[in-house]
């Protein structure tokens, strides 16, 4: 399985709604300083509830809403991020331990290929989004035996901030409202953990070296 798309709306330096389509394998994100690369990773942490606001370089959650939105003086502004996973041909996440995940995915990789050929021109992806050919498939989460089509699973988080500065944050799995705890249980099944080491933020790589040896041993505890 892999993340096939991240959609950001009014999140940090992303003004309107921006689609970032992704493929399996090895993708590099590059560009000038201050352009928004780290903000994309913050968006992943935000949507999947993997970090506090400080972990996303924000003093408090309202700082995550794009500045232009906030300064337009509307009564309520909203930022949201949707992460779409492609679960491959697994009917449900119990298939994750199958011996050859790549082989199973090859059939649906072809379907994804067609979507990507659309955006492989150098157009900004936010302009290409109207051409998105794949319909959003609402997966029911409890298995329906559809093996021919990619099996999508989406997580959305919406942050609403009122003019007074109070805010609410809500999570949705496949557009159904859920609690953070429920989201973490689902992510746990997919082997995504808040204290996992699969996301390494800018400047943090050597923290494993400077951390206390007991903290470091706890990393192994978590996995065992």
């Amino acid at each position, binding site marked *: 399985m*892999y993340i096939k798309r991240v959609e950001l709306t009014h999140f940090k330096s992303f003004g309107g709604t921006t689609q970032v389509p992704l493929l399996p394998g090895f993708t590099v994100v590059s560009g000038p300083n201050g352009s928004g690369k780290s903000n994309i990773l913050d968006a992943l942490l935000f949507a999947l509830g993997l970090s506090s606001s400080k972990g996303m370089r924000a003093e408090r959650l309202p700082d995550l809403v794009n500045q232009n939105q906030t300064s337009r003086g509307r009564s309520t502004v909203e930022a949201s991020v949707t992460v779409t996973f492609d679960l491959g041909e697994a009917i449900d996440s119990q298939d994750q331990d199958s011996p050859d995940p790549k082989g199973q995915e090859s059939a649906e990789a072809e379907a994804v290929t067609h979507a990507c050929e659309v955006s492989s021109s150098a157009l900004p992806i936010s302009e290409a989004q109207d051409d998105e050919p794949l319909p959003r498939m609402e997966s029911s989460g409890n298995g329906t035996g559809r093996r021919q089509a990619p099996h999508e699973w989406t997580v959305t988080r919406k942050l609403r901030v009122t003019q007074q500065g109070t805010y609410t944050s809500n999570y949705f799995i496949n557009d159904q409202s859920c609690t953070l705890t429920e989201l973490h249980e689902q992510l746990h099944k997919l082997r995504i953990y808040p204290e996992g080491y699969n996301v390494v933020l800018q*400047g943090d790589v050597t923290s494993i070296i400077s951390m206390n040896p007991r903290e470091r041993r706890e990393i192994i505890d978590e996995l*065992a």
Partner: protein
Amino acid sequence: RQRAFKEAFDAVNENFQTIFAELSDGDGYLQLDLPHDPFGSGLNLVAHPKGKPVRRLASMSGGEKSLTALSFIFALQRYRPSPFYAFDEVDMFLDGANVERLARMIKHQTQQAQFIVVSLRRPMIEAAERTIGVTQARGAYTQVLGLNLQPQSASV
């Protein structure tokens, strides 16, 4: 529970030794302060980059620390793979030759997981299957450009 820990520790240790040898051209292994009391103990990384005598971790160079930390992260990954990994400029301390080594290792690890790597370094960009370009015009919003999407290389 102690047995579960031991099993995890041994597996990660074995991975760490292999990966460290590949990334740092030296010997490294994990060590518990108190092998008979894992839960009261700390976990140390013993590192000999390039055959140097063992130094305390703190005295290693910036590049050596990065490679040691990354070896540990990859060792964890091979034991309990996550579906995706997101690395933000983990190559910032590395010299050109080490960026290439790291890029090669990431390429190898992508057989098991999706890697999204933010990087400014050319050897990393060249090793990837594709690059997503991010820009921000003066006073404007972030724009994302899909560059070099090579779908044909994505399906195995």
